[in-house]
């Protein structure tokens, strides 16, 4: 009998020791591993922009945290997600609202080595195209490009290759690949390849990554939302204006960044420079209603949405600084 009790106590002891702590820190999920593209957040933390607003922000790097669900359920206050997630979440009854556009340009595109001569969506006909998977922002962006080229999926070969686009293109396994335009092309160029990129944003304006919160936060703590938006925007603008300093700050926050070889570090610098282009920081986080319309139309066409939503409830520009 004593033996059993000892076991039970041991199990509970181990489990209790590992249980997560609750606190009033704002955990901000960004849906990716630490990366230099989050420089504005590191800047806002490091330079005290959040602190000045009375906010204590901590990065959350869960690849799979269902940020929209957790924010909608009130488990988290804010998250950084792509625009389509907001609409898909709202269609499931999750009361999330997009309060600040961070990336003004949809960061997805199709990259290919220059000798493939793929410069317009039409050129993809008959090609072998690699894509991380048939979900998420990359799939939605790719669909938008197919539409622009008047193509359908059956007009080309689509391979789900995970996040191995750079390797697949360098090895010639794929003719083209759906990429984050600020990321993979830079690595390929650094390896000496000539790369063509077709950016989704050149063909269609779509809602990209931005800050979301819940309807409840907006109703009950509008000042916190306003403060969060203000401080984050300040971080974006500062990082865009001072890329070198932003990179140096990122070295403190992004594991391994400071230890990279010079060549790899230059790639990451270029990733930051290209990201800054996508942010268009001068637009101050403004959401473009047309981009929301485009996104909804695309999702309806892909049958990811079954009926149109009230888009005016999905986003607001009301928390942006005057």
């Amino acid at each position: 009998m004593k033996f059993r009790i000892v076991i039970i106590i041991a199990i509970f002891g181990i489990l209790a020791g590992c249980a997560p702590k609750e606190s009033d820190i704002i955990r901000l999920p960004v849906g990716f591993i630490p990366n230099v593209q989050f420089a504005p957040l590191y800047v806002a933390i490091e330079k005290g922009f959040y602190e000045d607003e009375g906010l204590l922000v901590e990065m959350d790097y869960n690849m799979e945290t269902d940020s929209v669900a957790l924010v909608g359920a009130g488990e988290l206050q804010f998250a950084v997600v792509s625009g389509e997630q907001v609409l898909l979440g709202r269609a499931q009854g999750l009361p999330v609202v997009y309060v600040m556009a961070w990336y003004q340009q949809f960061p997805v595109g199709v990259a290919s080595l220059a000798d493939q001569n793929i410069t317009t969506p039409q050129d993809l006909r008959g090609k072998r195209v690699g894509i991380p998977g048939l979900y998420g922002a990359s799939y939605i962006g790719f669909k938008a490009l197919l539409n622009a080229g008047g193509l359908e999926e059956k007009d080309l070969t689509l391979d789900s290759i995970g996040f191995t686009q750079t390797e697949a293109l360098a090895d010639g396994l794929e003719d083209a690949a759906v990429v984050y335009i600020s990321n993979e092309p830079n690595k390929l160029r650094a390896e000496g390849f000539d790369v063509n990129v077709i950016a989704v944003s050149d063909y269609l304006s779509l809602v990209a990554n931005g800050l979301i919160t819940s309807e409840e936060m907006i109703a009950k703590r509008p000042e916190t939302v306003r403060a969060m938006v203000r401080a984050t925007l300040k971080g974006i603008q500062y990082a865009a204006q001072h890329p070198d300093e932003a990179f140096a700050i990122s070295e403190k926050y992004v594991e391994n960044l400071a230890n990279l070889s010079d060549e790899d570090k230059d790639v990451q610098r270029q990733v930051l420079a290209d990201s800054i282009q996508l942010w268009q920081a001068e637009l101050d986080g403004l959401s473009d209603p047309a981009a929301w319309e485009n996104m909804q139309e695309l999702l309806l066409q892909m049958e990811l949405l079954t009926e149109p939503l009230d888009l005016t409830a999905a986003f607001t520009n009301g928390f942006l600084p005057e």
Partner: protein
Amino acid sequence: MRSKQKRKYFSILIALLAFLLVWAGLVRLLELPAFILPSPLQVGGRFIRALADGTLARHTAATLLEVISGLASGVLFATFLGYLLSKSALLENVLQPFLVASQAIPTVAIAPLMVIWFGPGIFSKVLICAMIVFFPVLVNTVVGLRAVPDHLRDLICSLRASRWQTLKLLEFPAALPVLLGGLRIGATLSVIGAVVGELVGADRGLGFLINVGRGQYDTALVFVGVFTLVILALLLYSAVILLEKRLLRWQTD
């Protein structure tokens, strides 16, 4: 005896060298860039750098903590439940389908859910780890306890041993070889469990380090993480073998 031992170590060394040579040869021959397949030298250099700046130690410690907690809680729970199952046919009949079904669930598929339900901290990783360890240990416990010879049971019964005495003096020692066999499997599996959790979402650990290396095209770092995991699993496995040798000395003598 000693020369035999020497020859064994020598052949292991030769195999290792051959492996490194083939690897280096492949990189040279195929002219692969470092971000696709780094050479052994590059990986070795990266290993030393990661060791020198403390990165490797920090992430290894995080993973080790998850592995040990997961292994310990998984083994404890599995042994406990295994004991109950071996005693009660009813309980076994009721739980069996659930236990088998739980094994059909791919951990990779539910690991993201674990992270959502139990947070991004260490708890979700320990839980995933414990789940992976659980089943082999459970099965071995039941098999081990069931395999206790009947004539010994009769003997200890005739001596009016209590339940606790039966467990301590007969069942546990008799089942120990099988139990330790389960632990051996569990030890290597536990490393996988912890890393699956870290790959899904974490801010430390070797799985996280591998993800970071991938994201920054630092493929040498990915290899450093993978090799460290292999070493970790080998060490755990050897620890169980040592434990076996010690606990089962009566058997081999």
